[in-house]
C-alpha cells in the first residue's frame, strides 16, 4: 500500500447510527484508499455491518459525513451507492432466488433493446464472458439461482459487482457459506481486484482471512473503533484482545491477555 497524501476513495467521518435506544455506531471515522483492503473485525453486534450498511445505502447514517474521492456524498439507498460505484457482496440474501444468473447480475440495471425490452441474449452473453474469467466451470445460466450452490451464487454476486466497474467493494462475510476451494477462489479474486485499484472493506469473523488479505485492520467494539492497525505490526492474539476486551494492545494487562489464551 502506498501511503501518499492522495485523496482517500472513501472517507467516513463521525458516523453515528442508532436503532431506537441502541447506539450501534458511535462517532466512527474510517477511510479507504484505492487498491487497499481494510478488514473490519469485531464481535457480533460490534457495529461492523451496520457501519457498512451506511456506505452501501441499505441503512443511511443518522449523522456524520461520507466523502467519496473527496466529494461529500449523499447515500440514501442502494441505488445511490451503486451510482457512486459502491458495490456490496453479502454472505446471503443478495440474490432473487427464482431468477436466473444473468437476470440477477443485471437486476436493477438491465440491458434493454432499442424498443425498451429486456435484452436477454446480450445479458446472457455478457454474463458468460465475465463468468469465464471468474469461474470457468459455471454453466448454469438458464436456471433459477435457487438451484445453484453457495459458491456459484457468490460468484454471481461478485460478477455483478465487478461487471459494473465497482471502485469500492464491501464484502460482508463473503466466504462464510463457502467450502475451502471456493474460499481460496474468492481470495485470489480479491487480490486481483485490489491490483485493479479497487478499494475493499472486508467484514469477517475469520482472523486468518483478515490477516491474509488486509492492508489495515480496524477493530470495532461496542460501536466504536478500538484501533486501526497494520497486520505486520500486531499479533493475532493482540487483535483478539482488542475484539474481546475492546482495549488497544498496550492497554490490556498481561493478566487479561493470559485469560484469553486459556
Amino acid at each position, binding site marked *: 500500500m502506498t501511503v501518499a497524501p492522495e485523496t482517500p476513495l472513501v472517507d467516513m467521518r463521525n458516523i453515528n447510527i442508532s436503532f431506537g435506544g441502541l447506539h450501534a455506531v458511535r462517532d466512527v471515522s474510517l477511510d479507504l484508499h484505492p487498491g487497499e483492503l481494510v478488514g473490519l473485525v469485531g464481535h457480533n453486534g460490534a457495529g461492523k455491518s451496520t457501519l457498512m450498511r451506511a456506505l452501501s445505502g441499505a441503512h443511511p447514517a443518522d449523522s456524520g459525513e461520507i466523502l467519496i474521492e473527496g466529494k461529500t456524498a449523499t447515500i440514501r439507498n442502494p441505488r445511490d451507492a451503486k451510482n457512486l460505484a459502491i458495490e456490496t457482496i453479502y454472505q446471503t440474501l443478495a440474490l432473487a432466488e427464482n431468477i436466473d444468473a444473468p437476470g440477477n447480475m443485471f437486476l436493477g440495471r438491465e440491458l434493454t433493446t432499442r424498443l425498451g425490452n429486456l435484452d436477454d441474449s446480450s445479458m446472457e452473453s455478457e454474463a458468460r*464472458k465475465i463468468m469465464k474469467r471468474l469461474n470457468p466451470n459455471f454453466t448454469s445460466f438458464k436456471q433459477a439461482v435457487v438451484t445453484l450452490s453457495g459458491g456459484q451464487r457468490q460468484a454471481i454476486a461478485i460478477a455483478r459487482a465487478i461487471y459494473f466497474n465497482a471502485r469500492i467493494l464491501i464484502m460482508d462475510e463473503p466466504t462464510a457459506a463457502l467450502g475451502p476451494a471456493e474460499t481460496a477462489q474468492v481470495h485470489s479474486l480479491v487480490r486481483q481486484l485490489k491490483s485493479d485499484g479497487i478499494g475493499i472493506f472486508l467484514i469477517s469473523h475469520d482472523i486468518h482471512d483478515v490477516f491474509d488479505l488486509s492492508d489495515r485492520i480496524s477493530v470495532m467494539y461496542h460501536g466504536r473503533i478500538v484501533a486501526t492497525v497494520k497486520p505486520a505490526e500486531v499479533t493475532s492474539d493482540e487483535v483478539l484482545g482488542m475484539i474481546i476486551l475492546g482495549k488497544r494492545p498496550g492497554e490490556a494487562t498481561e493478566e487479561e491477555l493470559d485469560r484469553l489464551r486459556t
Partner: protein
Amino acid sequence: MSATTATIEQPRGGPADRIGSFARDNAWTLGLLGFLAVLLGFTKFANPNYGLDSLQGTATSVLPLALAAVAQAVVVISGGIDLSISSQMALTSCIAATLMKGYPGEGVAVGIVILVLLIGVVLGAVNGALVVLTKVPDIVVTLSTFFIWAGFALLVRPAPGGAAADWLKGLVVGGLGIDWLPKAAILLIVLVALIWIPLSRSRLGLSLYAIGSNPLAAFRSGVAVNRTKFLAYVITGFVAAFAGLSLTASTGIGTPVPEPTYVLISIAAVVLGGVSLAGGIGGVFGPIVAVVVLQLIRDDMTFMHVDPNYGLVAQGLILIGVLMVGSLIQQRRSRA
C-alpha cells in the same frame, strides 16, 4: 468489462434447445393443457350435446374469470395478493353499464370504455398506495377495499341493470367466422398479448419477479421495491377493469353485488396454474388454462346432475391436492 462491449459470444440456442427449454420452463402449463384436453373429451362424453355452440358459451362465461386470474397472477407474482378484484370488477362493470344506458351511442361507448379502464387504474393505484404507504399487510388492505369498492358499486347501481353497447357485446359473444373459434377466446389472447407479453419482457416485469422472490435482495440490487409493488396493483386494477367490462359485455348489464367466488376462483386458478403464492414464480398462461379447467369441472358436474355444491367441494379438494404436490416438488428441488 465495459457494459457497452458488443456481443461476442452468442448464447447457445438452436431451435431444438429452445423447444427443450420452453418445455422445461412451462412443464406445469403444458401438463395442465393436457389435462384440459382430457377434460374436454370427458365433457363431450358426459354431455353428448356439448358442441361448438357450447364451446363458445364456455369461452364467454370464462372470459371475466380468466381476466380476473390474469389480474391476480400479476400481483401474486410480485409477492402480494388482491382480494378486492371481484368488487373492482363489480364497480367497473356497474359504471360501464350505467354510463352506456345514460349516454347511448356506439361511439360514446368507446369513451366510456376508456374512462372505465382509467377508473380501474385508479382503484389499483389506491390499493397499491395503501399497501406501500401504510405497510399494513396486503391481505388486510385489499379485504378493506373489497368492501369499499362493493359499497361504491351499490351506490352507482342499487339494482342490476344498465346497458352495453352492441359492439362491446359483439366482442365476446359468438364465434369469429368459424364456429369453433370463440370471439371471447380471441379477445383474451389479444389482451394478454398486449398486456402481459410486453410486461414480462420489460424491466418492470423482471422487477416483479425479483420483489416476489426476495424483496430484500431486490432492494439491495437497486430495484425500486415500493414503486414496483405499487405498479403491480395498478396493473391488476387495469386488468380487473377489463374483467369488469367483459362482465358488462357478456351479460349486457351491470350487477352491483360482487360475486365473491370470483376472487376465490382467481386465487385457486393462480395456484393451480403454477404461480407460487410465495411470489416470484409462474406466469399468466397457466392460470388462464386453470380457469377453464375449473369451469369445465363445474359444468361437467352440472351435466352429470351432481349437486353443484359438490362442485365447490371438488374444487377445494383439487386446490389442496395441487398445493400438496407443489410443495412436494419444491422440497425435492431444494434438496437436489
